[in-house]
């Protein structure tokens, strides 16, 4: 049994008041975490099984006997269990709960088993269950014990009432998989890139690229390069190497066809009568290019399908593992199946797609179609955690199979062993040996974020796949799950194009919420309304994509699509537009009918019974002059971004008219803002859709800034940054947590001025600031340059008080020897004077204060029986908040968590900020009586900021907040400050709404006898005289940021020095100093302060007196002479007199030339280093008086 803490049954006192809280209150919060949880659910429900089915069977051939006996291995019926107590008895299945894992530093993982099928030759299939170790289980996924628990049950299990899951617990740390941007799956993209030229001679910078994704989420990217001679090459990667095939071979190998058919298919998109018309993508060059492609085949003398397959098989057999004995045509088929357009199963579809891609490529070359921008969200999707784990696990299992094959074969070769290949038990024994590596690899991936993969899984990066879900405060925690990273490789790129905010990402990625600095524009956050399509339909069943595609095809044929099969002579754009569904050419629609067809499909999307999913993306790219390549691109795939908008053509209105749209289709849609206007649209392009609310394009954090529409935009970005650094109420289950560091605000408040998102996302459960009375005036001079003055009495009454909780985990088992014998136990010395501060068990008392260097705990070596105390780290006192013991070890207590609490009351140098990007540092704790006071109310401000903070920063929202909070508090009500709310009132009752906001706030004030503009007459606290002007004063919600001086200050006089240079070391952790560098040196030089310079750079640094030989000029040859020891008579009480050291020059063999010279020690080091390179440094010494 585990007994964590002394009060394991005690639950937060607040929980009783939480009775009223229902799960539905947190529904919106849960929605934010769905991409993580749903994708992992899919992994559990179907993804794992599909991945196993897609693993290639492995064959082991017994070559020694000469007979072709085969053992074919493949997987079936995987089984993943909920987390259970490991090492317990089998009969007792005890669930492990997440909090136990957090406390004990364990992992929340479940047992993973699967059956491996063996088949000898054509014999019966034998199934054997293998244990693959423990896979990490995502919290709140279907295998998590907390799934579906209501807030009360969550609190009972020592979790947050809001617990949303979506992360893993590995070694006690909460980690989540990062959402990564990938290029859109199954969509051919025309690209122009310089690097394509380097593929070889004759290559141009143009290509069409498609990232094909299989049903099991593994991907293969295929590139179609354009050659200067008019031909094209198909490039694909096998085991980290790119292979290029002439496109003609692939075309011929895919289907039985003749040259004419290929020629006609290619030239469908060019008709002379449409030349240079709108939407004409083909030119007459296309015919010539088709000829070149076919001529190439002639040159290789490949004419038939079988010849082409044979050719491919011949070239690829060495790189296709496990196919060494197959015939060339089988290998050729396998190459086409496994590496070319893997998302399609039929070769006809692949052929059509390749033709389409060639046409697109030629259109790109002829500039009749524009290249697609790979940096635009239009061509992107997101990597979901569940999918990542699926493909990673698949690869690891595949690797395990091939490793097993190698091991079994090795075993067979060994002469002396009597290994029986036909004895299944023996084979299983070998295979069992490293079955655990599979899930260990997955766990390591989550632990370190590194992909240990040979193929790279067609992913853009190999590390940084997972991050720690810090609970610094609630917003930071949420933001981790909403963040989308562009890819680590772009962070090092010099160009800024990838970082640009493109209009395509409107409504999907928040334009405000991105950090400034290094990851700017690369680390984006999804908007509050943005979702990610999943493999689950709205009823929670796994989607059947085959069925969905069937019904879409049926619907399309109903609106006039000509299907691509049977193959007929076809037309191309602009006459007809091709219809692609998930990268498969379904057919074509005549361009006159297409608009109607699109509108029809959109209406079908909205109805639940049509069988067409609500998240279908209807990307209709209309005919244009040199724009994007036209066509109707439909996507049903998971991992796409979607967001809700209102469809205006749907007559019923209300919730049924909410359509989910993706970034691809959005670019070609007419969506109007919800302000009642039409956004300057002409009648020819009427709006078909409408935004639900104008704040829909902001992320959760950006949505919390009150009146952000009145602020200068960079200030809102700063606020998004600072909101995530705020010290707040980080966790309600604080008592049961063992985080390394937790910040906690003692007396947080709910903001008076708040947006609708504040209550929607239950931020009141984790408040993050204080409503401080802020006066805007220049007072005392201590508020210059963004400094702010805090009222000392307010701080004494508890304003912005906080704590830092730090947990120290002490694990004595780490010190034990290999046999696992207990070497050290917690114990206290019997000596009464020693460590009297500690309890009898060697651990500190709860609530006790521990001063620096005083013992934190005491332990005893079981062999020597010598007690030893371990001092507390850090230079400031701490309180013991909690001591929790690990009761799992049998004999002796070996592992404890000691949670320390460090008070952090506001002091000079601490950082604060309002919610409008106005940060400041506390410069003084000013006495209450010296603060200015209001004549009417006698109120003294809590905080004074300088009026200069406003003109250049233009944070009008903060001024509004001050007025509104003053009015709100006078009336006893919260004030809604949702941005753009004035323009969303579309009734048009007042034309100048922005005036009326100020009017409304002003009236709030005047009705309670305050000044309309929020000004008040104030008196100087020091003189009692009226201040020359009226002062703007009112409550503003202030956040305390986590940057505190007590964690940062650095001071040093003497101390540790560097071993080599003997200069003072840097770094606060080691008691180092702050570097006095070149620039600082320059300024001292400029001031002519020579002595100060000498003091800083020499006396206080590496002052050294060297002995230099005047004769040879060397500083390295000085050696001490051992004098004959004179018998020094020891006088009692006095230390023996030191014999003076004397030096001699080793080179000159004399001590006559020895002189002492003061110099920096590094100079001596330099001389030594140079000497090592055979360079002699010699000094010319001169007596100063002789100069």
């Amino acid at each position, binding site marked *: 049994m585990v007994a964590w803490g002394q*009060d394991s049954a005690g639950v937060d006192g607040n929980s009783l008041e939480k009775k009223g809280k229902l799960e539905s209150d947190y529904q919106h919060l849960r929605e934010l975490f769905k991409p993580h949880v749903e994708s992992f659910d899919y992994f559990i429900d179907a993804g794992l099984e599909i991945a196993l089915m897609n693993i290639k069977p492995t064959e082991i051939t017994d070559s020694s006997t000469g007979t072709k006996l085969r053992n074919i291995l493949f997987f079936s019926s995987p089984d993943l269990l909920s987390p259970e107590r490991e090492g317990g008895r089998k009969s007792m299945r005890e669930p492990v709960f997440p909090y136990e894992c957090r406390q004990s530093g364990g992992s929340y993982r479940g047992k993973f088993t699967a059956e491996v099928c063996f088949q000898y030759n054509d014999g019966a299939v034998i199934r054997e269950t293998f244990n693959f170790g423990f896979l990490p289980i995502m919290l709140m996924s279907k295998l998590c014990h907390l799934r579906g628990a209501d807030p009360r049950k969550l609190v009972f299990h020592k979790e947050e009432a809001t617990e949303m899951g979506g992360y893993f617990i590995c070694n006690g740390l909460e980690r989540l998989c990062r959402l990564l941007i990938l290029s859109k799956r199954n969509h051919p993209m025309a690209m122009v890139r310089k690097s394509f030229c380097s593929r070889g001679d004759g290559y141009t910078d143009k290509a069409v690229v498609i990232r094909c994704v299989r049903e099991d989420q593994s991907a293969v990217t295929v590139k179609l390069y354009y050659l200067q001679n008019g031909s094209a090459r198909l490039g694909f990667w096998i085991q980290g190497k790119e292979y290029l095939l002439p496109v003609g071979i692939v075309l011929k190998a895919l289907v039985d066809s003749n040259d004419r058919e290929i020629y006609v298919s290619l030239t469908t998109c060019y008709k002379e009568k449409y030349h240079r018309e709108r939407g004409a993508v083909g030119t007459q060059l296309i015919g010539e290019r088709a000829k070149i492609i076919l001529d190439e085949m002639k040159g290789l003398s490949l004419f038939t399908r079988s010849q082409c397959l044979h050719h491919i098989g011949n070239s690829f057999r060495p790189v296709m593992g496990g196919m060494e004995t197959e015939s060339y045509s089988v290998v050729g088929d396998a190459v086409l199946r496994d590496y070319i357009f893997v998302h399609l199963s039929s070769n006809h579809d692949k052929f059509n797609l390749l033709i389409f891609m060639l046409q697109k490529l030629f259109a790109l070359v002829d500039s009749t179609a524009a290249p697609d921008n790979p940096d635009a969200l239009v061509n992107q999707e997101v990597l979901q955690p569940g999918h990542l784990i699926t493909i990673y696990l698949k690869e690891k299992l595949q690797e395990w199979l091939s490793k097993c094959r190698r091991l079994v074969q090795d075993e067979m070769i060994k002469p002396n062993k009597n290994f029986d290949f036909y004895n299944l038990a023996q084979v299983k024994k070998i295979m069992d040996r490293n079955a655990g590596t599979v899930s260990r690899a997955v766990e390591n991936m989550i632990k370190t974020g590194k992909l240990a993969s040979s193929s790279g899984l067609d992913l853009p990066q190999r590390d940084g796949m997972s991050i720690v879900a810090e609970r610094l405060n609630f917003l930071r925690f949420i933001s981790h799950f909403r963040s989308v990273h562009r890819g680590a490789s772009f962070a090092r790129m010099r160009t800024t194009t990838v970082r640009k905010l493109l209009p395509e990402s409107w409504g999907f990625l928040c334009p405000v919420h991105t950090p400034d600095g290094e990851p700017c524009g690369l680390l984006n956050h999804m908007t509050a309304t943005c979702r990610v399509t999943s493999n689950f339909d709205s009823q929670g069943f796994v989607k059947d994509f085959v069925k969905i595609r069937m019904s879409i095809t049926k619907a399309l044929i109903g609106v006039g699509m000509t299907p691509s099969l049977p193959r007929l002579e076809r037309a191309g754009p602009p006459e007809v537009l091709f219809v692609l569904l998930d990268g498969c050419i379904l057919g074509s629609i005549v361009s006159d009918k297409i608009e109607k067809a699109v509108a029809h499909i959109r209406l079908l999307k909205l109805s639940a019974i049509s069988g067409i999913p609500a998240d279908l993306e209807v990307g209709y790219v209309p005919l244009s002059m040199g724009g994007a390549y036209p066509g109707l691109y439909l996507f049903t795939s998971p991992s796409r971004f979607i967001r809700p908008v209102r469809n205006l053509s749907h007559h019923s209105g209300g919730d049924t008219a909410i359509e989910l749209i993706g970034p691809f289709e959005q670019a070609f849609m007419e969506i109007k803002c919800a302000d009642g206007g039409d956004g300057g649209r002409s009648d020819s392009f009427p709006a078909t859709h409408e935004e639900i609310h104008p704040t829909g394009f902001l992320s959760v954090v950006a949505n919390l800034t009150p009146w952000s529409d009145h602020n200068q935009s960079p200030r809102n970005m700063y606020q998004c940054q600072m909101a995530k650094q705020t010290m707040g109420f980080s966790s309600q289950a604080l008592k049961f947590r063992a985080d390394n560091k937790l910040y906690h605000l003692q007396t947080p408040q709910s903001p008076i001025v708040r947006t609708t998102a504040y209550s929607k996302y239950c931020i009141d459960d984790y408040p993050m600031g204080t409503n401080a009375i802020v006066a805007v005036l220049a007072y005392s001079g201590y508020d210059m340059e963004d400094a702010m003055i805090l009222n000392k009495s307010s701080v004494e009454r508890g304003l912005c008080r906080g704590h830092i909780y730090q947990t120290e985990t002490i694990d004595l088992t780490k010190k034990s020897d290999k046999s696992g014998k207990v070497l050290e136990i917690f114990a206290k010395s019997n000596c009464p004077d020693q460590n009297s501060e500690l309890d009898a068990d060697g651990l500190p008392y709860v609530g006790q204060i521990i001063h620096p260097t005083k013992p934190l705990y005491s332990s005893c070596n079981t062999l020597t029986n010598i007690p030893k105390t371990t001092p507390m780290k850090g230079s400031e006192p701490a309180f013991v908040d909690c001591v929790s013991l690990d009761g799992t070890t049998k004999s002796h207590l070996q592992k404890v968590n000691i949670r320390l609490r460090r008070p952090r009351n506001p002091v000079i140098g601490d950082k604060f900020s309002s919610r409008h990007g106005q940060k400041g540092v506390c410069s003084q704790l000013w006495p209450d009586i010296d603060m200015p006071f*209001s004549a009417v109310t*006698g*109120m003294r401000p809590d905080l004074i900021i300088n009026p200069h903070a406003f003109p250049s920063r233009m944070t009008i929202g903060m001024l509004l907040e001050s007025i509104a909070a003053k009015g709100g508090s006078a009336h006893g009500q919260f004030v809604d400050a949702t941005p753009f709310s004035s323009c969303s009132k579309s009734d048009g009752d007042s034309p100048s709404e922005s005036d009326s906001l100020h009017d409304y706030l002003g009236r709030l004030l005047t009705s309670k006898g305050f000044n*309309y503009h929020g000004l008040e007459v104030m008196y100087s606290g020091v*003189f009692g005289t009226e201040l020359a002007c*009226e002062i703007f004063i009112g409550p503003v919600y202030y956040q305390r940021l986590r940057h505190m001086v007590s964690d940062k200050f650095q001071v040093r006089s003497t101390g540790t020095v560097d071993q080599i240079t003997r200069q003072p070391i840097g770094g606060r952790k080691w008691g180092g100093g702050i570097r006095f560098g070149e620039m600082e040196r320059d300024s001292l030089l400029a001031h002519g302060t020579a002595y100060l310079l000498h003091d800083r750079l020499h006396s206080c640094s590496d002052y050294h007196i060297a002995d230099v030989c005047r004769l040879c000029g060397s500083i390295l040859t000085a050696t001490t002479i051992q004098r004959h020891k004179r018998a020094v008579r020891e006088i009692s009480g006095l230390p023996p007199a030191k014999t003076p050291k004397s030096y001699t020059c080793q080179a000159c063999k004399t001590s006559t030339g020895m002189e002492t010279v003061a110099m920096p020690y590094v100079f001596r080091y330099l001389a030594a280093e140079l000497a090592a390179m055979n360079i002699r440094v010699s000094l010319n010494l001169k007596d100063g008086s002789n100069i």
Partner: protein
Amino acid sequence: MEGAGGGGSGGGSGVSYQRFPRVRIREMKDEYMKFELRDTDASMANALRRVMLSEVPTIAIDLVEIEVNSSVLNDEFIAHRLGLIPLCSERAMEMRFSRDCDACDGDGECPYCSIEFQLNVRCDSDQTLDVTSADLHCHDHRFLPVDVAQRALAAEAAGGYDAPEQRGIIIVKLRRGQELRLRAIARKGIGKDHAKWSPGATVTFMYEPEIHINEELMETLTHNEKLSWIESSPTKVFDLDPKTDQVIVADPEAYTYDEEVIKKAEAIGKPGLVEIYAREDSFIFTVESTGAIPAYQMVMNAIEVLKQKLDAVRLSDDIQDNDDQFGDLTRNIQGAAL
């Protein structure tokens, strides 16, 4: 207000700045007081305000020894909350600061400088138990928490019935099985050291306004103009006489010196419609007490403290005369004068 205009006899230069300030009490309750202070200047008024806020001594819990705390709040938090509970401090002026106390070493046993409180609460029911100021026990009933003392008085007046809706200032809430046991020592202190010792919730004063309406100009306004002019002041300073349709000053002290009416007059195009001056020598004080000391006592104590401070200045003046350091200097000056 006898003798409070101290410092009048200072100097020796012959000119006396002595004034005789007058105080008129307008309103006086236990926790609230409003009075006029006339015939003095802003320095005096502000000195009084500052002393009331930060130098009138009170009693507050200063030292907490926690024996058992299994509540959800940590020890410092509870100690801080205890400190902020106002205690009846009418005896504070007679008590000693524990740093000056000769009779003890500040351990709380001393009757001259400290009072001991005990708190011992344990929740044994399924309902959340509120630990309040009423649970602070003290042998000396003169030092009860303010709200407890007031309720006791109110209960006496109401015939021994305790108002159930008032359970005192909540310190912490306890769940079943949680316990809080502590010993707290209250000491005398002043607001300058810590806000918990400040007896004043709000002390403010304003200059008495003098409002002159230019009646002639006012009569040129129409009825509606007058109304809108009156409305322009956020506070009800002016009013319209319903009979004579004349603008009258309804409440001059409601004026907040916001100059809204003057701006309004200019906006109408009638500058000089009204002239408002602040009287430099008359102040209207508003004093609100935390309850630790009655407002009246607070003012009186403030005057007492101010007197002590002035005495200290005078005393240090005398000392300086005899100061050895300046001995030569003063002798020289005096010698020269002689």
